[in-house]
């Protein structure tokens, strides 16, 4: 914890996501950082603004058969199928360690029905160490559930309402990019009472193995992530930030501090690092360093002064 005391008071990197206070805007994206412990001996976890854990469902899920991932140009497709230990084992097996980290732990949740979202929220209520809930209404990998919620404003608002009503911590709703107008979904979610929106989840994609003429993924389709999707993510963050007044959390192809800062300029209050964790396990910490250096060099009073400062003439 020394390091934090040393570095954080100056410069001021703090941001707020509703009632949730972060020491800096850098979080790790769900499904790309395990349950954090995997990274303990590779970086200083205490340096992070927050950790978002792998998506949790009410019951344990076995996930999709292999192959689950395939590399694409400057990106990758995944169809993990939301493999997870289920909310009960998550609480009993994973929370103790996470709680000990002393940084906000955000639990990413998903369900096949509003009822399931409600039940999982109830289960997380009062669990010590849970700083916020991120509602995944957008994961493209599971054929039922996920997708529908994220692509229909009414359903998106309904899920949000249901979770917000039951949750005793801030609720972040994670949006799907596979829609005609993401701002409309964001507005619906805001109307539903969300404390913040995070975007983007993966773009739905596909790859084919020509020699066998088979899909490269057992699930046929999967979620595209990595630098390839950054331009789409940046555009959506910008468009959503214009329309909603709740904080926007930017996600998509963030590899470096420059990438992160671009999202903040576009209107993001915080960001999440995903696929980059696979290529460089220290990516998230290095991004914190880079943002700190930028704030110092640019003589900003706070990183908050950079949010939404895109100069459009």
């Amino acid at each position, binding site marked *: 914890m020394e390091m934090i005391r040393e570095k954080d008071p100056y410069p001021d990197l703090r941001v707020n996501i509703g009632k949730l206070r972060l020491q800096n805007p850098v979080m790790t994206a769900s499904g790309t950082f395990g349950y954090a412990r995997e990274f303990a001996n590779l970086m200083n976890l205490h340096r992070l603004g927050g950790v978002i854990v792998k998506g949790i469902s009410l019951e344990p899920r076995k996930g999709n*058969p292999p192959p689950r991932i395939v590399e694409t140009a400057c990106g990758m497709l995944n169809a993990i199928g939301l*493999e997870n230990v289920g909310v009960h084992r998550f609480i009993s097996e994973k929370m103790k360690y996470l709680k000990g980290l002393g940084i906000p732990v955000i639990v990413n949740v998903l369900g096949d029905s509003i009822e399931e979202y409600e039940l999982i929220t109830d289960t997380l209520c009062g669990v010590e160490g849970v700083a916020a809930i991120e509602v995944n209404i957008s994961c493209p990998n599971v054929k039922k559930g996920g997708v529908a919620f994220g692509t229909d404003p009414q359903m998106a608002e309904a899920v949000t309402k249901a979770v917000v009503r039951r949750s005793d911590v801030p609720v972040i709703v994670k949006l799907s990019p596979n829609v005609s107008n993401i701002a409309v979904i964001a507005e619906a979610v805001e109307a539903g009472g969300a404390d913040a929106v995070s975007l983007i989840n993966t773009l739905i994609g596909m790859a084919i193995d020509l020699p066998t003429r088979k899909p490269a993924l057992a699930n046929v389709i999967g979620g595209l992530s990595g630098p390839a999707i950054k331009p789409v993510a940046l555009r959506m963050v910008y468009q959503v930030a214009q329309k909603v007044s709740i904080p926007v959390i930017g996600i998509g192809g963030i590899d470096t501090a420059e990438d992160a800062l671009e999202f903040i300029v576009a209107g993001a209050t915080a960001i999440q690092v995903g696929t980059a964790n696979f290529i460089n396990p220290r990516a998230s910490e290095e991004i914190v360093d880079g943002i700190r250096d930028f704030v110092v060099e640019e003589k900003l009073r706070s990183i908050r002064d950079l949010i939404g400062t895109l100069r459009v003439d």
Partner: protein
Amino acid sequence: MSQYQENATIIRFEQLTADNIRLTLESENIAACAKPGQFVMIRTATGKDPILRRPFSIHQASTNGRIQILFKITGRGTGLLAHSKVGERLSVFGPLGHGFEIREDRPACLVGGGMGIAPMLFLAKKISILKKDSANDHIIFGGRTRQEVEPLVNDFEQIGMRLVTATDDGSYGKKGFVTEVIQTLSLARETVVYACGPDAMMKQLHIYCQVKKMECQVSVESVMACGMGACLGCNIPAKDGHYVHVCYEGPVFNAEELAWK
């Protein structure tokens, strides 16, 4: 279990055959804690394409801070590594995964098919060090042709185990598959088989060991993104109908645990 990301300098480049290459890397931290059967993830491009690291078994790890990888050119990433030069640096991440469980008290039979031979040199050396005498231990090394096998024979002969080589076309050593060769060796009942190679080979060895009631440890492959348990992308079917993850539950498994189709 400590892991490191190192910018390892290439200090030796060996072109063993047209498409088999061995690299020696200065990688102190990884070399210091690596165990046989573990692997490393290596970045192959300076840009973002190809973006993912590539997994390679640790072929050797020396006490003087060096590791070796032995690889075959199969695509873009290995193609790029094949163009790397001595003096250049590679981002190496490891050591990763669970290696072989060495049974010092039992006879060992190491079986490597094709590139599956890569982890066997490190394993053989470790076993021969742990045991006073490896005279009753075997190494079976099979390949498609002479070119694939011959360049590595010297390294294995030095270890002091009984080396048996085989090629599909008989151009070097015995003619036939390692799975046929093993039958001819009349191994002691309590022998432990340590194997790495094509799935078909390992499946045959598994069946053989089941009949002979021998323990069989296999090192398997899968596609990988992170190599350290973060992405859950490296699953393969386990016996009980569930999945195991190659990168952190493996890559070495007891053959009994896995579902063999």
